[in-house]
């Protein structure tokens, strides 16, 4: 089967990397025009699937010499348009680079090619008795390590371990001119990539959250941890949303949990657990707490502490099933069933935890004001803990993509929501086209100047993911 049309660009790229890795058939380009966001579809001019850092280097060098845009993409599960090419060019589908390069059980790290999915990596590590800290974003299992680092994802395990780049020890990056750079301890040519902060500035951090505008990540080294012997799945229901939020913050401050999730709109739980509201009438919020420990005593002590806090805040235990659905039974089983309602309007952003209650009540008022429920929209409000002080806050609706009225209403709500989030001190951890249009004029001038200087120094021709620059 032939994937290319023999265009000049495709033919040149085939010369560089060989047959079967380059495609520019119209239908193939169409399949790379979207991600998990409602952002407009845009196609690249050509798609290349590289299988090594050297191949990426060859492609990027060629693009640099010929001033052709290059868009590096992973699983393309971005919820903000971050993987959609804005100016055509070469789209790098990095999912072919999915090898585990080294699992170092003594120095407790794993080095992988950046196109590996979190699900695949977790599965491999589990067989060897290890886990990761951050365990993948909420957008989908197809998300890759490189994609999440590029977009500072928050997800499974962020409460204890932080965002996607937090466990990162070093990167191999192809720079915009095609040269290859290694960061972290491996910058010293004799050393293993076992440590991130070394001789000079943390250049690993330069590429975290860059949305592929500063370099193409090809290899990443991540910290690993022993698989816990003991896991506690706790779930509590609350009649009072404010009390649920206070409980959430209390647990988070005590730093006992691997993961904490708050659902601020129990109507949505019907889509996960049919009959939930009949089983547990009167609940307006649910909080899940996950504890993982290598010592059973520590796990139990933490669980008792959480139970005590729950009692203090007037919680009702609702068994552990919902917590297990979230954590153990099946990743995304408490998220993706919502897609039966249509496409989401994701405006997840970082918010200080103590503000969750205020934010939930504000959104609930807005839903009521706009009569969204009467119009058939199912709101989902949730907060997922990030470190000990903040959350990824989500308040979105799902819309019927085939109904222009439904789409317009939902997208208006979305745009207004993002603007309001920023003005009220929320911070998007990823940007993408959806947040970029709201960020204009709101960034610190010094930050803008610094980013532009770095971008100019590394990528003077602006070939890497043009249109996705933060400033």
């Amino acid at each position, binding site marked *: 089967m032939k994937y290319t049309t023999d265009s000049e660009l495709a033919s040149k790229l085939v010369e560089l990397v060989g047959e079967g890795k380059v495609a520019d*058939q119209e239908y*193939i380009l169409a399949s790379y025009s979207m991600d998990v966001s409602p952002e407009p579809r845009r196609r690249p001019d050509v798609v290349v699937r590289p299988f090594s850092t050297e191949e990426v280097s060859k492609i990027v060098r060629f693009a640099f010499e010929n001033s052709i845009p290059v868009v590096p993409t992973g699983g393309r599960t971005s919820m903000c348009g971050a993987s959609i090419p804005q100016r055509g060019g070469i789209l790098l*589908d990095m999912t072919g680079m999915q090898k585990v390069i080294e699992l170092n059980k003594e120095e407790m790290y794993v080095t992988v090619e950046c196109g590996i999915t979190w*699900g695949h990596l977790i599965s*491999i590590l589990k067989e060897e008795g290890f886990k990761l800290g951050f365990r993948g974003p909420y957008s989908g299992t197809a998300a890759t390590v490189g994609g999440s680092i590029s977009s500072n994802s928050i997800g499974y395990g962020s409460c204890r371990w932080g965002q996607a780049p937090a466990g990162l020890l070093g990167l191999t990056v192809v720079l915009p001119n095609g040269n290859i750079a290694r960061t972290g301890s491996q910058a010293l040519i004799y050393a293993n990539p076992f440590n991130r902060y070394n001789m000079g500035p943390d250049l690993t951090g330069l590429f975290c959250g860059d949305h592929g505008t500063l370099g193409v990540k090809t290899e990443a080294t991540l910290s690993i941890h022993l698989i816990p012997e003991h896991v506690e799945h706790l779930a509590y229901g609350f009649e009072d949303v404010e009390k649920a939020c206070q409980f959430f913050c209390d647990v988070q401050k005590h730093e006992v949990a691997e993961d904490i999730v708050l659902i601020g709109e129990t109507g949505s739980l019907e889509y996960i*657990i049919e009959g939930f509201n009949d089983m547990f009438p009167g609940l307006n919020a649910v909080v899940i707490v996950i504890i993982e420990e290598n010592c059973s005593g520590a796990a139990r002590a933490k669980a008792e502490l959480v139970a005590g806090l729950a009692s203090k805040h007037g919680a009702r235990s*609702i068994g552990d*099933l919902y917590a297990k659905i979230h954590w153990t039974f*099946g990743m995304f089983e408490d998220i*993706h069933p919502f897609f039966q309602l249509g496409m989401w309007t994701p405006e997840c952003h970082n918010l200080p935890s103590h503000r969750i209650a205020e934010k939930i009540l504000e959104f609930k008022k807005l839903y009521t004001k706009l009569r969204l429920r009467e119009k058939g929209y199912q709101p989902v409000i949730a907060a997922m803990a990030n470190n000990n002080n903040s959350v990824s806050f989500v308040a979105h609706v799902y819309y019927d993509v085939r109904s222009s009225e439904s789409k317009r209403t939902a997208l208006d709500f979305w745009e207004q929501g993002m603007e309001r989030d920023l003005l009220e001190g929320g911070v998007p951890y990823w940007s993408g086209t959806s947040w970029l249009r709201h960020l204009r004029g709101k960034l610190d001038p010094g930050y803008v100047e610094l980013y532009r200087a770095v971008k100019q120094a590394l990528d003077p021709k602006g070939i890497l993911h043009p249109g996705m620059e933060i400033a």
Partner: protein
Amino acid sequence: MPSLPEDVLRLVYLCAFCGDCREPDKRATSNRPFNLVCPAREYHGFEAFDARGRMQIIRDLVEGRIRPDRSLLEWAMTCVTCGGCREVCLNNGGEGIDTPLIMEYVRNMLISMGLKTEKQEIIVKSTLENRNPYREPYSERFRIIDNMGDKDSDTALFLGCTSLYRRHEIAKATIETLRLQGLKFRILKEETCCGSVLKRMGFLEEFRKLAEHNIKLWKKEGVRRIVTPCAGCYRTIGKDYRELGLDIEVLHLVQLVDPEKIPGKLEGPVVYHDPCHLGRHMEVYEEPRRILKKIYGEGLLEFERNRAQSWCCGAGGGVKANMPGQALHSALLRLKEAQEIGAEMLVSACPFCLHNFKDAAEKYGVNIILKDISEVIVESYKAKPKVKPPAKLEVPVRVERPTSLMDYLRVHPEIFRELREECKLQYRIDGEEFVVERTRDGIEVRQGAEASDIELIISREAARKLMEAKTKQEYMKLFAEYYLHPTDDLSIDIELKKPTKKLMSLGYGEWAKKAGIM
């Protein structure tokens, strides 16, 4: 511009592009194995070939942003319609987006625009003219059959084109299996190809003609039951024909064979490959395993990717004819997988899977024995028993004083009252395995391991204590205690084997609530 039926379009636009269908099984992070899903994506590499990419392409096609041309037709013909993507998709109320169905209609749409591959045209022409897709004369259809059965039987044996024209050994072994099992059947000379390949390739009108011919024939002949050794025929007659009004019983051979009647014991190591059309499409997973377990005992191995997560042989959906390289590549991966787990023989229950496996083994020089389940059944009858057959597994239906949890549950079906019919729970107690299945009237309890909805891992002591419960309330109270507050001796753990959304619709939520664990 032709379009797609509204119910198919609805599915296309339901996709939110999360990509769960793309590569890993989303359950990878839980206690379930990581699995690749799509044979087409695995072979071609680009996003266009998996379900997520297909949904975007189809949207662009129906919205006029893609020109339907030859290359698009080739793309459409790469889907094996195996249903692996549908299995992992959580959308559509937990049922998953039905990409195989969508692709049939997309192919149909392209056909209506005059876009057909040469192979498609040959197959359609042959199927309509010769009543088989292999360009063989109809007069040769039963050439190798010397036993057309008992003309008074109301069971029609439908051998299918692949075994009749390409894999004679399967046709013969199927007939011999039925004879050995003492089952009466008849083969109807006027039958025609079931039309499976036409349906999968999108020739829906042509398929309908074939189906109507067979349905009319069976009605005229007073057929009450159809049995077939072919997974493709079984899926087509058992599901697609139903939509055209067929209302008689349809069985795959493995559902008719009684494992208890098979006398011999053969030696493994052997592994069973789930054909997509028998497994994922029709959810027949355990019957072939019961037969093979009886024949091979511990010599029966299991693929890591088995049952609903089984890797496709690569031949379906018209791919073997239109994309032979892709079909053989998928088969090669499966053969290697069989060798990696130490199997010397791969057994399947689909002549077309076997046909593709044999072609791949020959092309790539893979040294593995390949057989249909009917062949090993016949061999088993011929072999002398090597060991004493195990005692019958059945336990009396009613026992006064249960000695095991299995017996206890048999006499306490009320414990499962909240569950819907066909719910299946796998119990594991310190090496002992049994299954409880909710039936229309009560429950059925049997030993062994099967594809189930949930697994209950119960400590020996907890099982003993549960048996002391006098009422359902007592049982549920203890159950909740051991689950929520496990100790070293008294513990219950639960693993979900199906998406939660699906389980809730089967009544497990209510059951968990009654058990006090939710």
